[in-house]
C-alpha cells in the first residue's frame, strides 16, 4: 500500500518473561501512514509484543531485531524510545497520586520538546495548548486538576491515554486493548480521536481481542497472533471474518498447514 523504508521493522523477534518464552519469532513491518491491527485470543502474546516494543523491564528479548526508523530499538531505554516517537497506550494505565494530570502532561510534553530542540511551554502556554487537546477526547476540565489517573474510571483512564497521545504526537502509537473498559459511546469518541490524530507520517498498531474497535479505527492490515507467532496476515476483511467465526479456524488452518 505504502512504499518506502518501514518505520518499524520486526525480524524474528523472540522474548520471554521470567524465563518463559512468550514471543516465538515475530516478523512484522509497519510503514508510515499505515494502521495495523494485532488480534488474537487471550494469552497469545499480543500485549507482550506491545510491552516489549515499549521497553517494559520485565521482558527479556532473547532474539531477533527491531528497527525503529532504522535504529536498533533495543539500544534505547523506554524513555528514549518515547522521546524518539514511540508511544504505547496502556491497557491498564497506572495511577499516580499527588501529581496533577496537567502538570504530568506538561512535564511529558516538555521533556519531548527538549529532546527535539523545540521550545518548552510554561504553565500558562500549556494551559491554552491542553484546552484544545482535551476537546479532542471530550475530557472534562476537572480531570486536568486531578491526580494522574487517580480514581479515574476505566473509560476516563483510556481517554487520558489518548490525550497523552495527542500531547506527545508520536510517530508510532501502539494502543493496547484501547476498547477494554469502554462503553460504545466512549469507544466511538476515542476511535474518532485516534483517526483524527493519524497522518501520513504516523503509524498505528492496534492490539485488540475484539474486532469491534476496528469498525471505527480501520486498519489496512490485520494479523492474528497466537502462541507467540503471527499465524495469519491479511487485509481488514480478516477482522470481519474473525468477528463472525472467532479465532479457532485460524488456529486450525495454521496447524493443518504447518505454517507460522
Amino acid at each position: 500500500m505504502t512504499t518506502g523504508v518501514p518505520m518499524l521493522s520486526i525480524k524474528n523477534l523472540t522474548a520471554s518473561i521470567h524465563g518463559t518464552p512468550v514471543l516465538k519469532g515475530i516478523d512484522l513491518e509497519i510503514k508510515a501512514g499505515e494502521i495495523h491491527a494485532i488480534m488474537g485470543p487471550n494469552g497469545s502474546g499480543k500485549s507482550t509484543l506491545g510491552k516489549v516494543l515499549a521497553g517494559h523491564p520485565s521482558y527479556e528479548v532473547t532474539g531477533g531485531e527491531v528497527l525503529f526508523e532504522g535504529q536498533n530499538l533495543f539500544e534505547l531505554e523506554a524513555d528514549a524510545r518515547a522521546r524518539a516517537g514511540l508511544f504505547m497506550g496502556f491497557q491498564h494505565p497506572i495511577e499516580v497520586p499527588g501529581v496533577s494530570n496537567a502538570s504530568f502532561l506538561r512535564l511529558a510534553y516538555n521533556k519531548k520538546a527538549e529532546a527535539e530542540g523545540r521550545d518548552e511551554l510554561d504553565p500558562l502556554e500549556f494551559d491554552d495548548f491542553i484546552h484544545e487537546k482535551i476537546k479532542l477526547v471530550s475530557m472534562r476540565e476537572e480531570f486536568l486538576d486531578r491526580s494522574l489517573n487517580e480514581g479515574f474510571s476505566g473509560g476516563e483512564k483510556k481517554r487520558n491515554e489518548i490525550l497523552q497521545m495527542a500531547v506527545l504526537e508520536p510517530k508510532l502509537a501502539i494502543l493496547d486493548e484501547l476498547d477494554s473498559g469502554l462503553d460504545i459511546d466512549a469507544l466511538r469518541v476515542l476511535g474518532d480521536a485516534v483517526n483524527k490524530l493519524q497522518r501520513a507520517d504516523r503509524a498505528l498498531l492496534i492490539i485488540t481481542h475484539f474486532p469491534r474497535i476496528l469498525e471505527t479505527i480501520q486498519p489496512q492490515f490485520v494479523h492474528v497472533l497466537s502462541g507467540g507467532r503471527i499465524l495469519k496476515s491479511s487485509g481488514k476483511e480478516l477482522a470481519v471474518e474473525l468477528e463472525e467465526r472467532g479465532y479457532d479456524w485460524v488456529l486450525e488452518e495454521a496447524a493443518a498447514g504447518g505454517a507460522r
Partner: protein
Amino acid sequence: MSTATASHLLADLLATPRPAEWAELRQAAEARLATRDLPTTRDEDWKYTDLKALDGLAFTPAPSVPVDISGLLLPEMVGTRQVFVNGHHAPHASCVSAVPAGVRFLPLSTASEACHALGTVGPNANQSVFEDLNTARFSDGAVILVPKNLKVALPLHLLFITKAEAPVASFPRLLVVLERGAELELVEEHHGEGTYLTCPVVEVRVAEGAILRHERVQRDGDEAFHLGTLKAEVAKGGQYHSRTLSFGARLSRQQPWVRLAEGAECSLDGLALLTGHQVADTHSFLLHAEPNASSHQLHKCIVDGKARAVFNGQIIVAPHAQGTDAKQQSRNLLLSETAQVDTKPQLEIYADDVKCSHGATVGALDPEELFYLQSRGLNADDARNLLTYGFAADVLTHVPVASLRRALRQLVMARTQADSLGDLS
C-alpha cells in the same frame, strides 16, 4: 547506661524554678515525674526509638531571644499570627490585628479565663514524661477560644520557634477550645535552629458540631529533639481534622490521642520525610468511645539514608461504639537499603457492628509505575523523583491555605529532588 544520664536530664530541668502560675497542675506533674524516668528501648512503646542520643547533653531552660520571622509569614495569615520563641511569647513578632471579633487568640500568660480548661483534655492518667515535663516547666503558650457558632473566616497561624546557642529545652503549649458549632482552621508550625529539646503539648476541645482543621508542620533544626503530645476530645457530631507534616529534627515523636464521641468525625493524617540519621516516630491513639463516629488515618513516610520511621497506630472501639467506621493506612516508601520502617496497626474492637480496616505497606517504588512514566519520556531519575514527590504530595492535596500548600509542595519537591522537574502544583 542511658538511665543515669536520663535521670540527670529530668533532675536538671526540674531543678529550675517552678513558674508561679498553674501551681496545682505543675505540682501534680512534678509528683508523677519524681517516680519516673526517661523511657528506654526496653519500654515496649519506645522499642524502636532510642533516646540515648540525649546522653551527654545538658539542656537548660530556653531564654527569650529576638527572632527574624520574615521568611515564615504567610499572606493569608499576616494579621492572625502569634509567635512564641523558646516557649516565650514574642509580642513584636506577633500580629493579631485581623483576628475576627469574638475569637480569643492570646498568650496563656494573659488569658486567666483559660486556667480551668488547661490540663483537662484527655485521661487524667498515662501522661508521658515529656507531657509532664512540659506541664511542670512551660513558661507560656497560646490559647484559642472560638465562641458558639462562630465560623472563623481567616485561618490562624501559630509559630513556635526555638533558637538555641547552647543546648536548651523549650516547652510550647497550646490550648484550643471550639464551642458548639464553631469552625476554625489553624496552622501550627515548629521551626528552630541549634541543639535543643522541645516538648510541645497541644490540647484540643471540639464541642458539639464544631469543626477544627489543624495543620501541623514540624520543621525543627537538624540537631533538635521534638517530643510532642497532642490530645483532642471531639464531642457529639464534632469534627477534628489534623495533618502532621514532619520534615526536621534528628529525632521526633508525635503522640496524638483523640477521643471521639457519638457521630464525631476525625482525620489524623501524617507525612514524614526522613534522611540521614533522622528518626521520626508516631504513636497514635484513637478512641471510638461512642457510636457512629468515623475516623480516617493516612500515615505516609519516605525514608532515605540511614533514617528510621516508626508508626504505631492504636484504634480502640469501645463495646457500645456500634456503627463505628475506622480506616487506617500506613504507607512507607524506602529509598535506600539502609533505611528502616517499623509499622504496626493495633486495632482493638469491642463492638460488633463496625466497619474497621487497616493496611500497611513498606517498599520501594513500583516498577510498573516507573515504566509508565518512562514510557512517556521521563528518564529513570525523573520518573523516580516524580513518583517520590507524588507519594508525599498526595498528603498535601487538601491543605486549605493556598500559600502554605505551595510552600509545602516546594519543600517536598526540594526534598525529593523533584525541583528539577519544574512547577508541579
